[in-house]
């Protein structure tokens, strides 16, 4: 039979509290005008929260390498799609210099 590791309740509760703090933090930070850093802060907190869920609640820390690899591949592909589609939008208004007097 498969061996499983039983995570102590304490760990779960700790992660839970961390997630709640993260939520509170992200709301508070958004109230302060930090310019472009608002975006960075909000996304960073969201990524940390997501990692906490993945690592503890979804038991990535106890699962096989294959599961971890699958999860990483999924997020990697998402980033790939975002970046390569945005590449078009970021460069669309780049100035195309005319060929001088032809």
């Amino acid at each position, binding site marked *: 039979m498969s061996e499983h590791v039983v995570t102590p309740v304490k760990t779960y509760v700790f992660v839970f509290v961390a997630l709640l703090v993260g939520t509170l933090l992200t709301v508070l930070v958004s109230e302060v005008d930090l310019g472009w850093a608002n975006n960075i802060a909000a996304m960073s907190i969201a990524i940390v929260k997501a990692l906490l869920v993945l690592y503890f609640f979804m038991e990535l820390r106890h699962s096989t390498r294959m599961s971890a690899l699958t999860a990483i591949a999924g997020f990697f592909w998402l980033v790939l799609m975002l970046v390569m589609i945005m590449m078009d939008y970021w460069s669309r208004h780049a100035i*195309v*210099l*005319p*060929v*001088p*007097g*032809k």
Partner: protein
Amino acid sequence: MKSTFPLFPDSASTLSGHVDALFIVWSLVSLFFTVLIAGLIVVLMSRYRRRYPEEVGADERAGIWLEILWSAVPLAIMLAMFTWGTKVFFELYRPPADAVEYTAIGKQWMWKVQHPEGQSEINALHIPVGQPVKIKLASEDVIHSFYIPAFRIKQDAVPGRYTSLWFNPTKPGVYHLFCAEYCGTEHSRMIGSVIVMEPRDYEIWMAGGTPGKSMVASGADLFTSLACVTCHRASPGVTQRGPSLEGVFGSQVKLADGRAVTADDNYVRESILNPLAKVVAGYDPVMPTFQGQVSEEQLTQLIAYVRSLGPTGAAPAGGTGGTPTAATNPSSAQMDATSPLVNAGNTTAGQTQGAAQKPPQK
């Protein structure tokens, strides 16, 4: 006249030769590799054909150098072609500073072209030879694509934004203008002509087109701008939603209910405002009313145009593939005998519409 069985398109812009060179070299490379592979297969097939049923193939020989070779060679070829191709591409999409800007608007299913001088035409583009032209593209509805094969250039017209392309024609003549991006029912009719003229001819053409248009010319404009032309196309024998109006005016028209009427001013007027009252035999009652969309003045202009299409208003139509109608050709006064416009009759209803801007010689 064009050959009836051409295998290579006209090449008529400063850059079409560049694209062709790239294409021909690529084709030769492709041909080389196709022949190489096919030849190898044929040779190996006959050389190593199975001779007796239990025979098996030889052990694999180590081939890492071969693998590297045949990864590196295609990679090198492709990077070289990429570099060359990108150079051509940037030429194709970076207009020179002295390009004259025209505007082309795609709408289902026609191209409206606006000259910088304010002149506008439908499904036709008259330009002087040797002048770099930049075309700013827009679309009123769906995505269209402005495509002139002879110039090897194409650009989608995307609704909601402007795109552009440019070219510099080198050879007078009449070239296809296609819509290349599928845009609905009449996509394949959203075609026209690019008429490249000697600068002198172009001057004459411009001079003839700008000032106060005749009733017939204005009617012809309305005929296209109201999209009458999409159903009442001037190409006899082709299945379409509405009857062709050529030679109709003044003749007897058979109706769907068996009656016959004479196509006179009143009939044409009624057909525009209340189309379902007297439907021509053989056609479905699908025409929408234009009540409220055309003013009285425009109505008379439209009628004048339809009259000009009638047997009394114009010379008989040309043969297959010939000049659609004399009425829709530019007047001979404006036409040089050697002008490329002589060839203009080669095809397409689109051209008819474009040229229809010009008043017929009466």
